[in-house]
Every structure is written in structure tokens, then in C-alpha cells.
């Protein structure tokens, strides 16, 4: 029997903030199949980022289970979780999170470098990824020399270079103007169509919704389908 790519079973996540306890997610169950483009909408602080972090092996649930490709990842060791992130997941963040000391090429090549790939292979794949996002001419630039839209395109190239099955995008247009937002979303949608990876995109904008094959919403830590 084929497993869904991502599955959350009755997942809850609680954070402590001083004496208070914040329930970021409450009994969330969710499945995502290979090739879906899912948007997760909801207001700020609703639990969207936490939802993505749990799927991306960045955070562990307080209760419940998280599966990636049929593998229960919520009980994995640091080594196991790191391997999942290295191979299966690509992140696109609102604030880009590029390495300021690295060139565009080096930033994009970083996931392959971490996998210990050969130099020639890294070069070929990084150049290809940069070509796909239209930044072949900025390989030697540093992030501080790029516009916001360009920085996010570098982040997209870095997220897809190692051919992950899951792309998690956390408000990828939250820091961009509408023109650049449009460009980045089209790029992600195009790559999704070509490569067939699953996209889970958190957003509180309307613009990304038109690219979604499925929409879910989160309010006060509870998941609702079809928002």
C-alpha cells in the first residue's frame, strides 16, 4: 500500500512562554500526496509556521505522530532528522536566510556540499539550478548585492537543487513587492510542474492561492480543509 508523502496524526504542539503555554497546533491530522501544491492560509500567529516546521523535521510535536514517506520522523534522532532535511526537504523562508558570506553560487551549492557530492557534480547541478531561476549571470554576486526578488530566487534554487520530494515555503512572498511576488510564485509553480515535488506553502496573501491544487487553513491551531 502506498504511503502519503506527508502524514500528521493527531499532532499537537505547545510552547512555553514564561508562565504561559501557547497551543500552536491542536490535534491536527493531515495528509499530503506526492505532487500536490497545498497552500496553508491563516492569520499571523495561527500556527502555519509550526505546521511547516513539523513536516520539515525542524521541530518535534508535543503529541501525535509525523510521517514523511511512511517513516515516522517525530521520534528520530538528530542524525536521522538532519538526514531527512538534507535529502527530502527544501525550505523557502520569508527572510531568505541566505549566507551573507557566500556567493550566490555557493549558497545554492550548499545542500549538495552538505551531502558530500563531488565538485564537478555540484558545479553542474548548481549552474543548472541557477539557470532555472534565471540567475546564471549573478553567480559570483553576494546576497547583499541582490534585490529582494533575486534573493528569494536564490533561495528557491537552493531549495530545489538536491531534488527533494517536499518543498516547504513559509510566506515566500511576505517580504516582496507584488511584482516580485508574482515572479517567485510563478517560478515555484513552474518548477513544481516540471519536477513533481510536493509544495506546502504557508501564506496569508490571496495571490498564492491561485496556484494551489488544494487549500487548507489554520485558525487558533486547528486545521480546516478547503479554505
Amino acid at each position, binding site marked *: 500500500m502506498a504511503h502519503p508523502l506527508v502524514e500528521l496524526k493527531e499532532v499537537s504542539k505547545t510552547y512555553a512562554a514564561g508562565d504561559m503555554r501557547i497551543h500552536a497546533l491542536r490535534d491536527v491530522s493531515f495528509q499530503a500526496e506526492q505532487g500536490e501544491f497545498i497552500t496553508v492560509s491563516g492569520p499571523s500567529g495561527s500556527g502555519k*509556521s509550526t505546521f511547516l*516546521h513539523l513536516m*520539515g523535521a*525542524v*521541530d518535534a510535536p508535543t503529541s501525535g505522530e509525523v510521517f514523511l514517506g511512511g517513516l515516522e520522523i517525530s521520534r528520530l534522532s*538528530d*542524525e536521522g532528522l*538532519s*538526514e*531527512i*532535511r*538534507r*535529502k527530502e*526537504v527544501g*525550505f523557502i*523562508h520569508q*527572510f*531568505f*536566510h*541566505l*549566507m*551573507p*558570506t*557566500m556567493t550566490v553560487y*555557493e549558497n545554492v551549492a*550548499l*545542500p549538495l*556540499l*552538505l*551531502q*558530500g557530492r563531488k565538485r564537478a557534480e555540484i558545479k553542474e547541478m548548481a549552474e543548472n539550478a541557477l539557470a532555472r531561476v534565471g540567475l546564471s549571470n549573478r553567480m559570483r554576486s553576494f*546576497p*547583499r548585492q541582490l534585490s529582494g526578488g533575486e534573493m528569494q530566487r536564490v533561495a528557491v534554487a*537552493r531549495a530545489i537543487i538536491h531534488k527533494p520530494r517536499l518543498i516547504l515555503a*513559509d510566506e515566500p512572498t511576505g517580504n516582496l513587492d507584488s511584482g516580485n511576488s508574482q515572479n517567485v510564485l510563478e517560478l515555484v509553480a513552474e518548477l513544481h510542474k516540471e519536477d513533481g515535488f510536493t509544495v506546502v506553502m504557508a501564506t496569508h496573501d490571496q495571490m498564492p492561492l491561485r496556484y494551489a491544487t488544494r487549500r487548507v487553513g489554520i485558525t487558533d491551531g486547528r486545521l480546516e480543509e478547503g479554505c
Partner: protein
Amino acid sequence: MGVTFSLLRLLAWRRLKEEPFRLALTLVGVALGVAVFIAVKMANETSTRAFENSLVAISGKTQLEVSAGGLGVDENLILKLRAMRELKRAAPVIQQHVWIRGAGGSGARWRRGAASQGSAVLALGLDLLGDNDFRGYEFENKYAREEILSRIADPQGLFIARGVADALRVGVGDFVEVEAARRMRFRVRGVLKPEGMAKSMDGRLIIMDIGVAQEVFERFGRLDRIDLILEDGGEIESIREKIQKFLPPGAIVERPARRGRDVEKMLASFQLNLTVLSVIALLVGCFLIYNTMSASVLRRRGEIATLRSLGVTSKGIVSLYGAEALCIGLAGSCLGVAMGVFMAQGALSFISQTIRNLYAFLEVRHVLFGPRELLWGFGVGLGVSLVSGIFPAIAASRQSPRQGIVERQGKVEVRPAAIAALVSGALLIACLAYWLNLQALAGGTPWPGYLSAAAVILATALFSLPVVLCGSAIVRRTLGGALSAWLAAHGLGRHPHRNAVTLSSLAIAVAMLVSLIIMIESFRATVEVWTQQTLRADFYAAPASRFIKGSRASVSEDALKIIGGVSGVAAVDGFRAVRLPWRGARITLAGGDFRIVAERGRLLFIDGDSKETLTRARTRGEAVVTETFANLYGVKKGDYLRLPAPGGEVPVRVAGVYYDYTTEGGFVVVDRAFLKKHWRDDRLSSLAIYLTENARSEDVRKSLENVLDPTMVLISNAGLKKRVSSIFDQTFAITYALEFIAVLVALLGVATSLSSNILERVHEIGALRAMGLNRKGITTAIMGEAAILGALSVLAGLASGVCLAAILIFVVNKLSFGWTIQYIFAWKGMAAYLLVVVLASLAASWLPARAAARIPIREALSEE
């Protein structure tokens, strides 16, 4: 491994390159710490090795030696020893220290009172015809056997080592003057090749025939020792026991190495103190690396989070940051080792001078070092880098990927429970420190005292975080109305952990500074009081060679009559000091005129009146001992000492214990008449001269100079006190130098920490500037932060230093050297030093503050 190197190159190295100022400060700090540590280590090892090597070289193949301390052995004993079938060879030795200078045609005269004139050398009187089996030496020029015999037979000839020849610029055929019991002029009959024995003491060695030496040193019929070589196959210990039974009372037979053990033991305490001080600079260097790495980890929270989200494991993060710390350590160590080699030369000069002043004659000019020492330096540098870098690296690895992504600004919260734990821990460690001191005093060993000092330093470090938070809160509440003060306090409280590390490193350096100032000034004041109360004679006279530590130079007691006959002299106290073997060590037995000391001088007895105690000791044939002697050998008033003498053991009751700061080993002092009677020695080591009430000091000085033998040095009371003060300053000069470097390294830490704070606050600074705060306001806020940090460090360091000083004075010093020092807090001097530290921390902040003020507003606001 390959991934770590790639990340090091792409992340760490590029980050460091972007912050050359901070990198340079850290490297210099680490380098200074390593340099000071290995410089002291190399200088200590060089001086110890030089001392040991000279002992070995001068002893040559000697297996056992017979001696009787300063009194020497009867020369006829050698004939009896040679008759023993277990012994293959027996050789006579006279070993003394003398002043020597060239006299080749210059006609210059010795200037009385200038004891430093000329060159101090070790003089050996040997049986030059029969000594070859014991010590190897060769002449630079090749002579025929007959020629050598004629040169040896010359009663006005001597042989000098290359070091002496170079120092005096004399050669074969030139004349030299030797200042021993009498001044004598010799012709240089040969220069020894700089090898073996002639290489020891940096070549400061002269050799003469035994007969000539006995005359020069007025040791007629006496020998300083007899060196022995055993027949093959003899068991040394059983032969030693057999010879010991055969020897007259007061003489002992022992292995040559035993002779240097007393000095080496005293040297070890002195060198341990220097090593501990050098460790402080290294420790402060550790804090600097820790600080740099902590700042790096805090600043790169986002970077770490991104790496973690890309799949780098927590071990990978530890490797990355650990490797970065190691790289800083490696670069700092390279620089430190190079600096250390140069600094070692300066340290050696200080250390050898102190050894010459306080412990033994030692000439060593060049630091000995090889690959082992250099590797040691690298090892220490890398070790401390790893130790200080590993904690920030572990902290970085514990950061979850989510943390860095969500909490981009990295606000650092300190939980009240953590503060309570730190304060409780610090108080617990302070209690442990107190208990360790009690253990040290009860056990009579200084080691728990050192541990206690380490515990106080640890407690200071633990207190630093609460101090930063309290200080920041207090400034905010009291000076919060002033924007710059508010910003400064806010900046301090924003990164309490890192600022606490900076504060603890500066506080520890200040604590050491305070403790040393208190200890040294207390010691100085105690010695000044002691010299004022006990050095009461108007003039002191002694053979010039007596100013070489370890010298046995003496004069005839005829000097008493000669000086006593000078108009204006009321009394002369002849003082004699001889070394005696006792309880497996060598002690100093001294003889003074108790009647004169009781009437005119004064000894500070722990209990009892000086005059009464001395009068009773004189009439009953009792001894008084110094406090250092009493502490070292566990002797107290009323105890009986059984001292070896030529006529057999002499039981002497201890009449009193008095404070004395002249030597570490201390004295047993008896009335000189008692010493003459039992030890059959009528020589004098020095004389204390008291003038009549109406005598004019200058007139008497001139008269004394006319009658005194030209080899004698005459020093006024004020001159002697000045000399005591000068030796005191020389002794502690290196202490201050080491401490200065530790404070300097800590100040580099202040500059590094402030630079890190500023780099993290670029947005904040940009926002403040955008809101209208001018450059001066930013500069004032940053410098205010440094001033608060400096002032808090000084307060914490002062509190800790006062405790450390008490440990040094009442435990470590007391148990290591046996001296009682009055605890004196020199407020004025202390305040000046501490003000300098606060001003220096302000100065250290100037560059970071200027850099902060110059950050362009647009860039600061737009930076990611």
C-alpha cells in the same frame, strides 16, 4: 571532515575576514596569553636547568662528596679517605664566589662600596694534577705537558673560562684582580674551552690550584669538600654509610645532587608563583576566545538555523565552531610562541636576577629552547582554544533549527532560577575556598591554598552574570533619565551572558592585580617596619664577595679590634654565618654578639622582650631562631636543637622566635662566643658598627675606609635599607609585568566584546540615528557601556582581590616561605590603579564606539 573544512572556508573564514579588528584583538589576546605562559615556563626551565647542569658539570664523575657545611673539613681527612679500599679516587675542592676584574694595565682601583663593580664568578680550587678523573676541561691553546705543568705550578696564575675572558676582555698573559678574603692579582695562565664544566654558569668560572685557593680564601688546612670516586662494583649506599661512620662529627657524605636540593626546593616555590601568575594571562586569553566564539554563535543564530534546516547535524555544528576556535587558537599560538621566545629572554633576565639576589649564584643569559618547548607552546594554545571554544560550539549545536528561524533577533532571556543557581553555586564555592584554607593551615602545605585561590576565581566568574544584570538594572533606574546612560545600560543587559564573560575576565585580572598590590605593599610595609626596628647599626661592613648570594667569604675577627679602635665607634657586633647539615638539609647557623644586640639593636620576637631574651640566651648558651626557620622545621620556643659540631652534637635550647625577612631558609642564631667555643670558628661574615652619640657619621666613615681592608664594603644604615628596597623592587618587577599583561589581555576582551555588541545592534543603531540621535550620542552610549563594564569589573575584582590577597598572605606565602606579613590595604595606590583600569576600558571602547557612530543609517536599516 571535508564538509566542515568547506564550511569553515565559506562561513567562518569569510566572517572573520570581514571583522579584522575583532579578529586581530582576539589573536593578540590569545598570543599574549600563550606568550607569557611559555616565556615564564622557558625562563624557569632554563634557570633550573642551568643550576642543575652547573651542579652536574662541576661535580663531574664524583659519586660521593664529603663536606661539613661552611666550616669545611680538615684537609688531612683526604689522606684517610684515600686509604679506604672502597674508594678509587679522592680530590680536594675549594668552591667559593668572588668578584673578578681585569687589571691589565688600566691601573684602576676598586671603589669601596660599589659591590657590583667587576664580575661575579664561581672560583674552584682543585688539585689540577690529579683532578682529571673527576672533571673534564681543556685549554683553548694546545700546550705541551711540561708547559701545562709549569702553568699549573705558578702560584700567581689561574685559569679562566671563555665567559670570563669575554666579559673582562682578557686573555692569556693578562692580569686580573680577584676579590676574596683578600685582594690578589693573578696572571691568566690559560683559557678553558667552553665545554663541560667550563660551560656552566655561562662560563663565569675560574680555576686555581688548591693550594692557591686555600691562601686566597684563607682556608688554611681546610677544604670545602672532598669529592670521591668509588672502586668499580661498589654499592654506593652501603659505602656512603660506611664513610659516614668514619667521618668526624659535623661532616657528612652524600651524593652531589643532594647539595643543590635545598636551593632547588626554594626555587620551586618562587617559580611556582610565577607560573601561577602566567596562567592568569592564559586564563584571561581563554575567556577572550570564549567571548569571541560566544559572540560568533549569538550573531550567527540565523546562519546556524539555516544550516540546521539544510540538514547539518548538531555534531556538524560542534565540529564547525570547534574547528573555528581551533583555527583562532592555532594562529594565536603561532604568534604567541614567536612572541614567547622573545619575552622569555626578558623573563630570564628578571628571574635570574631574583635568583642571584635571593637564592644562589646563577649566571645564565640565553634561553634554552628547542622543538619540545615550541610544541608545548602550540599544545597549550590549542588546548585552551579547544576548551574555551567547545562550550560556545555546544551551545550552538543545541540551538534547534526552528529557534534561529523564528527568533531572528536573538533576544536572550535569563531565567531567575539560573541566577539563583549561579549565586548559590558561587557562595558554595566561596565556602569551599574558606574550608580549603583551613585545610592548608592545618596540613602545613600551600597546595589547598592555591586551590582555594582558584575557587575564589571560579566564584568571581559565577558571580559575573548576576553582577551584569544588577549593574544594568541599577544604572537604568538611577541614570535612566539620561538617554546615553539608558542606552549604555540597555546594551549591557541585552547580552548578559557575553558581557558576563567579559566582566569575569576583566574582574579576574583586576582581582589578581588587587591581590598582588595588597600582598606586595603589605610585604613592603612589613619589611620597612622590620628594617626600621631591627637595622639599628650606623654602618655595616662585609667582604665584597659577600654580596654574591651563596658566598662564604669571611674576614678575620681582627677586624673587630681595628674598627673598635676608630674614634667615634661605640661598639662593633661581629656576625658570623655558616652552613650546617641538619635533618637532611642545610641550615644557617649564625653567631652574633648578643650583648651588643641586646643593648643597641633589637630583634622583633613573636613573644618576649628583645633585650631580656637575648641576655638570657647569652648567659644560658641558648639560641634564637627566625620565624621562617621555625615554620620550615616546626620548631618552637623551648625546643632543643641538636646541632652538629666538630666536637659532637651540641644541644641548644630555643630561647625565642623572631621575625626576619633576610632569607627564606632562616637562621639559628647563638652568641658568637658560644659559636666559637663549639664550632671552633673565629671568622666573621659581616660587622654591624654602632657610633657614639656625638660622632659625625661622615668623619667616622672616612676613618673606617682608611683602616678597613680594601676588599671590605662599607654601607651606611640608609644605604643598606635602600639596597633592601631595591632588591625588593627587583624581585617583584616580573610579578607586575606579568600582571600588566593579564590586564592588557582582559582589556582586549572589553574591546572585542563591545565590537560584537555593536555588530549585533546595527539595526538598533540605525533606528536611533534615524530618530535623530547624533554620532556623539552613539559614541557616548557605547563608551558608557564600557565604563559601566569596567566599573563593575573593578568592583567585582576588588572584592575578589581582597579575598585572594588574604589567601596569598596568610596561607600561600606563610606556608611556602614562612613569612608573617601584616595585611595592609593601600587605598591611595589601589584607587589609582583601579581608576587606570576603568579609563583603560574606556579607551578600549573608543574604536568600537567610533565604528558604531560611523555606521551609515541607510545601510544599517536595510541590512538583513
